[in-house]
């Protein structure tokens, strides 16, 4: 309210002249859009496009550089196997990051659950089926604990999961005595724990059930996130929690559910990891949390929440796998592989920032 508008006599419609004005709101921009703007807009509408393009390009490029050894059905399915565990962790991580959170405890939950499943089934003779069930319940409970602290104590997810990462890791070492459970002992007592390490042949390709599991989990979560009301609420919360609350979403309850689901996915990854590694190793995947975040970020999911497709994380994990395999087969030293992944992360986040700036 300003004084001059108030003193204006009523009836003088100073907006009448607008009738003749250009009604197309800011439409002139269309005439000046360049190629980059079109790309930007296309990517904004379909953020998974970037990782898909990068994945296809990197497969082609490494196929040229490293030759047939890289570009064989066997090697490509091997890459799938190698990323299958980090891929599952990335799926769990995506759920949390979509809500604008972060979960540093994913790998710790997974390793703890694999140790629990293994200890119960191998050392204590619990039937494998029940050992698995207890592991899944434990994964859900671990996630529930994270979610509860994020929503009830109003602590930042980074802090909560930084804490539980350490807590779960310590529990894992306590339970396992930092000792691996040997492959032979698993075979003898609980062979079903290694189910996801088994494979079928498809020509020269060797596809493990673990690789298939990763893909199935990703598509199930994609369905949940995109085709159900619950999934849309997850996006809405990550986008703007306050708005979601005002629009009628019970944000805290949904958040707890998201953390629980992520914990469950970690427990599924735990089962799969026994097959992948062959043994149960309390020392493995120490950096699994960071690797999962790497896959999510390269997959075009925004760390600020609410944007990106969970399938992007699958492609992100595969891109990292393709880079590592390709660089190794090309004879590149380990430290340059680390170097390359570092640049990939920065590149991916820059693209994300650029896409977000799309104009109206």
């Amino acid at each position, binding site marked *: 309210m300003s004084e001059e508008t108030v003193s204006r006599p009523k009836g003088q419609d100073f907006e009448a002249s607008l009738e003749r004005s250009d009604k197309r709101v800011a439409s002139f921009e269309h005439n000046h859009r360049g190629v980059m703007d079109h790309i930007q807009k296309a990517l904004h509408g379909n953020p998974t496009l970037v990782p898909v393009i990068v994945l296809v390009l990197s497969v082609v490029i490494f196929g040229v550089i490293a030759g047939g050894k890289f570009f064989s059905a066997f090697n490509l399915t091997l890459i799938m*196997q190698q990323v299958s565990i980090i891929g599952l962790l990335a799926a769990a991580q995506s759920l949390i990051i979509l809500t604008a959170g972060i979960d540093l405890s994913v790998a710790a939950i997974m390793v703890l659950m694999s140790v629990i499943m293994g200890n119960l089934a191998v050392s204590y003779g619990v039937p494998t089926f029940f050992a698995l069930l207890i592991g899944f319940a434990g994964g859900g409970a671990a996630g529930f604990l994270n979610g509860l602290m994020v929503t009830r104590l109003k602590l930042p997810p980074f802090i909560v999961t930084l804490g539980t990462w350490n807590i779960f890791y310590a529990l894992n070492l306590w339970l396992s005595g930092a000792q691996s459970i040997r492959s032979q002992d698993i075979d003898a007592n609980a062979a079903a724990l290694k189910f996801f390490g088994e494979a079928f042949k498809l020509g020269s390709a060797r596809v493990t059930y673990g690789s298939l599991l990763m893909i199935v989990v990703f598509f199930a979560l994609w369905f949940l996130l995109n085709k159900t009301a619950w999934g849309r609420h997850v996006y809405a919360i990550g986008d703007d929690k306050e708005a979601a609350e005002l629009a009628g979403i019970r944000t805290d309850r949904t958040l707890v559910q998201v953390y629980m689901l992520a914990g469950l996915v970690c427990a599924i990854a735990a089962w799969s990891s026994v097959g992948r590694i*062959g043994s149960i190793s309390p020392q493995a995947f120490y950096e699994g949390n960071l690797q999962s975040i790497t896959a999510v970020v390269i997959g075009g999911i925004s760390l600020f929440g609410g944007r990106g497709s969970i399938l992007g994380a699958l492609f992100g994990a595969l891109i990292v796998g393709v880079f590592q395999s390709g660089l190794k087969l090309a004879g590149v*030293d380990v430290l340059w592989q680390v170097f390359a992944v570092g640049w990939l992360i920065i590149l991916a986040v820059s693209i994300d920032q650029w896409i977000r700036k799309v104009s109206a």
Partner: protein
Amino acid sequence: MIKSATKTALLLGAATIATMAAAPAMAASHEVGACLITKTDTNPFFVKMKEGAVAGAEANGINLQTFAGKIDGDVETQVAAVETCIASGAKGILITPSDSRALAPVVTQAREAGLLVIALDTPFEPADTADATFATDNFKAGVLIGEWAKATLGDAAANAKIALLDLNASEISVDYLRDQGFLQGFGIDIKDPTDIGDEDDARIVGNDVTNGNEEGGRTAMENLLQKDPEINVVYTINEPAAAGAYEALKSVGRENDVLIVSVDGGCPGVQNIADGVIGATSMQFPLLMASKGIEAIKHFAETGEKPQNTEGLDFYNTGVELITDKPVDGLESLTSEAGLGKCWG
């Protein structure tokens, strides 16, 4: 049983840490104080080392505090531990340095404050940064398994295809010593003995890193098999990496025609010798390193004398033994059955 022993050790460790607050008081009483600083308290190797130190301290009436980094390479935690130790008035420090060079300044500080510093397992660079080093001769450990592999292959050694599964990208001393020792034992020109991967012998298919665990061992083996599927000799930095490599070979049906050799002598590793997963391993003795270290500190506190190195080496050798169920002529070895009686973890 192993587990409960570990837990007891952990509890003892926690109890000693809990007494830290009372540490300055301890210096005033006439009890000798000592500190054990390991790379981590998770690796069974260090758990065993701690057990040895705790037992030795009890036997010698020494007040022992134990510290550990969170992960291998956690220098900050170790620096803080050394500082705490100096402040507590301890007589000596046993340390497995997470970084052979980065810890030198703080160790020098400790020595200037009159403490005896003994490096366990991993030597400093240069080794005389510490007063003494009690360690496995890692190069020798490598040589033993290299010689065993060469003798086992016989004439086929000339056409072997070798995969080297190392620790990580930082190439710390234990990593290159074992790797280069193995190659030397196998009869390969190692060029710079502190550099992994500078060899040009055609028998080497390639190197990859494992982080010393099963997952890394498997992935590294898969990658090297992609480079050359005819690999028939696999060197591994430790036994968990060897177990991972075995799984990778099994998945392509090659587990029976590849020789896997390793270093460590952990109980699951020795069991894997018995099960035919690993062909041979060089056993080291962490418990001995720690208990000898404690004795040295006690001796130093009483007489002011520092321990001497083993002749011809710049450290005190705590010994290494070859464990295999397929002994070869000219190489002393123990069977896995005998090994299980001496293994750690």
